């Protein structure tokens, strides 16, 4: 009987591990043993697959893999830097043609990126630079774009009053960039009081944080949240308090549901990095490197667009911001999120 129990237990644990891995595989035709044919193999390590941004990245990336005839193996670090490093080591051992990674902690990855370099495998750190000569870094201008959002918000509230920011969590690269940009913008406005709360990338946490901030600060003028999925939930708090006209809500990511909210006027703006686009574009860069090409610049910028209505666009243009930004309408953004017209095949 005891034996049976232990066998059953092992089976359950194994099954649960399999379930955990389920989301990480790529296209339907992908195998896990590279080098069986001439297809180039890219290994991609994301931060975690419970976040919509990364789920969409996989979709866009798989599309690029199909377009370019390469194989992509997706892995999730589950937000854990140790796991991320060991996934890197696995890819090096497997001898993939290029490794792309969303660094959880840039400094901690230096060693293993050097290892990859010594093994002759090109690496791309997505959204965060790791200071190793052979490494390429793809960026979506999160810091700069968020700073511009901060300027727009500050202008719209007249340079004074209370502004709230919901960031992801400290130590998460994407969150830190998007928080830092906003903070830098607000630092230029001494009469603006910035109230910050983490939302841990969880819509429910974001909703509660927004409710509490609005209740504690009846005179709140604006709310910026660094990720669309959470902003849409946080907006419920604004609506519930009946303050749609008083509180400006702005967001980031440009996912289609948020673009609809921009069109309906619930959100003032979002920024289309486009998670699917980011996935597509990163795979494209990875393919280039896997094929032996070496771009001149080690930091490669992805095209990003501000998403807002024409009316809002006019308001922003009247501000004469010292920034050269591309502004598109919500419908255009929705179309662009699924098409990869920004990235001509190379």
């Amino acid at each position, binding site marked *: *009987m005891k034996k*049976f*129990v232990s066998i*059953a*237990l092992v089976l*359950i*644990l194994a*099954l*649960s*591990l*399999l*379930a*955990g*891995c*389920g*989301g990480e595989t790529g296209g339907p035709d992908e195998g896990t043993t590279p080098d069986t044919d001439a297809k180039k193999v890219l290994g991609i390590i994301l931060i975690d*697959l*419970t*976040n*919509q941004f990364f*789920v*969409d990245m996989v*979709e866009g990336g798989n599309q690029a893999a199909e377009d370019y005839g390469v194989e992509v193996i997706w892995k999730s670090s589950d937000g854990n830097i140790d796991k991320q490093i060991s996934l890197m080591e696995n890819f090096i051992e497997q001898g993939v043609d290029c490794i792309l990674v969303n660094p959880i902690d840039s400094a901690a990855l230096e060693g293993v990126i050097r290892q990859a370099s010594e093994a002759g495998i090109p690496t791309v750190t997505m959204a965060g630079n790791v200071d190793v000569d052979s490494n390429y870094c793809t960026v979506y201008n999160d810091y700069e774009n968020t700073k511009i959002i901060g300027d727009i918000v500050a202008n719209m509230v007249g340079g004074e009053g209370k502004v709230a920011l919901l960031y992801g969590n*400290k130590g998460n690269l994407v969150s830190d960039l998007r928080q830092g940009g906003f903070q830098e913008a607000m630092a230029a406005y001494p009469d603006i009081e910035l*109230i*910050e*709360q*983490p939302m*841990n*990338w*969880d*819509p*429910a*946490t974001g*909703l*509660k*944080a927004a*409710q*509490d*901030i609005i*209740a*504690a600060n009846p005179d709140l003028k604006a709310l910026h949240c660094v990720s669309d*999925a959470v902003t*849409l*939930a946080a907006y*419920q708090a604004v609506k*519930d308090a009946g303050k749609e006209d008083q509180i400006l809500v702005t967001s980031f990511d440009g*996912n289609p*549901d948020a673009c609809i909210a921009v069109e309906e006027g619930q959100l003032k703006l979002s920024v289309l990095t486009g998670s699917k686009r980011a996935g597509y574009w990163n795979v494209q860069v990875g393919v280039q490197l896997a094929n032996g090409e070496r771009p001149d610049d080690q930091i490669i910028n992805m095209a990003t667009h501000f998403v807002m209505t024409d009316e809002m666009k006019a308001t922003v243009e009247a501000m004469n911001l010292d920034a050269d930004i591309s502004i598109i309408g919500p419908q255009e953004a929705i179309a662009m999120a699924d098409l990869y017209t920004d990235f001509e095949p190379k």
Partner: protein
Amino acid sequence: MKEAAPIIVLMAMLLILNSLNSDFMSLKTLLNLMHQVSVVGIVAMGAMIVIISGGIDFTAGYGLAMIGMAAGTVYATGILGGSVYIVVLVSLVCGALIGALNGFLITKLKIVPFIATLAVMSLLQGMSMLIGNGNMVMIRDPSILWFGQGRIGSIPVSFLIYIFFCLVAHTILKRTKMGVYIYALGGSEDATRFSGIDVTKYKILLYMLAGTYTGIASLLTISKLGLAAPSIYGSTLLDAIAAAIIGGTSLSGGKGKVMGTFVGAIIIVLITTALTYLRIKPEMQDVFKGVVILLALCFDVVINKISKE
């Protein structure tokens, strides 16, 4: 004395908060609290029932996400019309099934609850990302949104639902045979078995009850947010277990009351709200939560010692 402990903690918190920020005690705060407490509270009721029976259930967190994704996907794909009825049904059935699986593993395969529910938790985590490819689903049907966003007068519907299920839990624990057996199981499983009670049946039933409570909480979550995503589990599991413990539920089983857990859930929700009002660094939230849980546990130990002497 022991039953009064969570209420004393709550009163002390309210007094301190009110003296630090006089805006805190207001109708707005009360209504927000009602809106926020329901999900944690309902999961905490389920956790309490399991803990009273001497078990533990870790599936509520990712269960919340998995059930939410299942209900959201059924809604989005329009299977069976995607109506409010089917969404409610899917939430409740998924919850009950998760509970049944837990109960089966624990009673039939004799796996300790800690390990069994941990394994199922991982299973659910994976499933929440597999269902609908982990894609976020927006929910726009007003009759589904009513559960989480609707108000009767100014009282949130979700709070009324929460109160209803508190009363259900109370009735089961205090007025039914099953309630008696749940407490008996926590006191001594062997003694319960030797008195001729079908332990297996009642254990499976009580895990199913807890699972169903998770299903209800999941429905309220997606309805409040207006969306379902795999990341909606948040800190619900730990908050719920903490609420049960702060409310005087004994981790060694056999002891616990609905009223205590009800107050415990309010305390847990108030901790984060309070820190926002007091402008304390958000990173301190978890520290404060930890301190309150530790205090509750210490209190438990001290009271036990005194009553023994």
